[in-house]
């Protein structure tokens, strides 16, 4: 079985991955003072008695991703897609199993490093440095980032504080900063839904370009069209379990039947928050 994979280079290997969230203060008393005291006093007791609830977000997921693949992650809300992505990025611990990666996978996103009180210009520098680019790289790419974002199309907005931007403008600048770096393994969490139609087209182009440089691209999206446009393989997660893993068309057909989405029309939020994160009795 391993023989037919010898010619392809794996970049991400997930081996029986379980991810469990522990949430404090959900037991009896709902975070009241007595419940908190109880928790502290009986530290050595089982998690359940201590009011810690376990949420089993991803169950026994295994897959191998290869260099040059673009993989879509689909599933209804709360099915564990973003959680799995964070674990691949090494930002969440796994309960069981292991995730092996080639190089450092990076989540596409710099929102948290940016500051609304600073100008767009300074945020480009800060965001670039936060992603691990050198000062020279940031300086070289600066114009490219600003042009791509299109922030200056309607005037000199890049020298204004980011709090003065419209939400669309801010989202475009964030995407432009995040997409400025080349990554070994790139993880994208629904970043394509930002901005107007022309910016979305530019973003999709940029993703394809990144894919050429990057080894592997993972894309989480509820937009089946953007999955079709960018991915050649799809993983379908439901309630934390890997339901299907295969070529985009095959998986999406089943998925659309499952969500009752008869036409191939993209539908941003296919399902209400179903009880996908079912807590496991511990």
């Amino acid at each position, binding site marked *: 079985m391993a023989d037919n994979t010898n010619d392809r280079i794996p970049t991400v290997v997930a*081996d*029986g991955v379980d991810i469990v969230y522990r949430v404090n203060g959900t037991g009896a008393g709902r975070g009241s003072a007595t419940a908190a005291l109880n928790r502290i006093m009986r530290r050595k007791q089982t998690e359940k008695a201590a009011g810690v609830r376990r949420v089993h977000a991803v169950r026994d997921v295994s897959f191998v991703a290869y260099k040059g693949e673009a993989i879509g992650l689909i599933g209804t809300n709360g099915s564990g897609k973003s959680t799995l992505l964070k*674990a691949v990025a090494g930002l969440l*611990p796994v309960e069981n199993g292991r995730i092996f990666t080639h190089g450092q996978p990076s989540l596409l996103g710099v929102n948290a490093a940016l500051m609304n009180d600073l100008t767009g210009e*300074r945020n480009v520098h800060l965001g670039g440095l936060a992603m691990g680019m050198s000062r020279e790289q940031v300086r070289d790419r600066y114009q490219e980032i600003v042009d791509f974002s299109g922030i200056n199309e309607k005037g000199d907005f890049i020298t204004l504080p980011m709090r003065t931007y419209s939400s669309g403008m801010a989202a475009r600048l964030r995407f432009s900063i995040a997409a400025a770096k080349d990554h070994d393994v790139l993880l994208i969490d629904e970043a394509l839904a930002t901005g107007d139609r022309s910016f979305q087209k530019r973003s999709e182009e940029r993703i394809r370009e990144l894919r050429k440089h990057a080894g592997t691209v993972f894309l989480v999206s509820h937009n089946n069209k953007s999955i079709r446009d960018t991915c050649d393989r799809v993983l379908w997660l439901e309630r934390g379990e890997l339901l299907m893993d295969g070529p985009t068309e095959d998986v999406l057909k089943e998925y659309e039947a499952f969500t009752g989405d008869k036409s191939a029309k993209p539908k941003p939020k296919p399902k209400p928050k179903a009880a996908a994160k079912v807590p496991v009795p511990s």
Partner: protein
Amino acid sequence: MGPIGPTPSPRVKAADVSQVLDTPPQTPPPAGGDLAALAARHGLSVSGARPSLPEYVRQLWARRHFITAFATAKLTAQYSQAKLGQVWQVMTPLLNAAVYYFIFGVLLGTKHGVPDYIPFLVTGVFIWTFTQSSIMAGTRAISGNLGLVRALHFPRAALPLSFCLQQLQQLLFSMAALVVILLCFGVPVGVSWLLALPVLALQFTFNAGVSMVMARMGAKTPDIAQLMPFVLRTWMYVSGVMWSIDKLADKDSLPHAVTLALAANPAAVYIDLMRFALIDSFHASQLPAHVWAIAVGWALVAGVGGFIYFWKAEETYGRG
């Protein structure tokens, strides 16, 4: 419909799910051992593992520009909405000094025979504030920036270091105000002012170390941030910020060990060294014995110990 248990709608679709499960996956995942072997064969590494200490230092050094840029950005963002803008960087410490002068100099008259009391007091307040706000910021460095920690990869020590650097920049503004105050009160400019630089370097190392310790503790137990103001206030009152520790030693009312401990506590050491550097009427006799050795010792113990303590939990930050 409660948050627990499956809702009716997925159950209706259960038939679909089983059909899907029946269809064989196109790329069947090999069994557990095979996957690990495959990963090993291609030299893949486990995601999110803690790097070795030298590797960690190297990564941190590679991010030095981010650390400084983040500190400066935080400092600039602080007053960006104010009309006077960055003028507040100097105004805030000056107003602080004015308040302390009013209360301790005018109302209470707590001079206790300290010559140049106002420069003495203001130096103490500024130097203490540097340690206090560094530790406070360090406590919240991880727990208050979970978004950043969960979105981006960087050695987490960059956060407490960056916050300490921001406080150092803040202190430099305060020091500019302090120089004005010193000159106004007729304290002569001396060569000993150069000693302020090594004192600041040592104090920064100490602060950074303690904030890394607090950052790890605060990441695990955010409640510590609620407790810290009380700990820090107690520490301030025993560190001789507003009074002179060596005057207390003359009184003989306290056991020798207590005054020795008071004088050797790191905050008091850095405050008194700075007073010795800047104020000509503050003599070396007012400093504890081996004061420079104590200052370097505290900086090394806190700096190295704090860094290693922080690194030990590197892979756990921002999780769970």
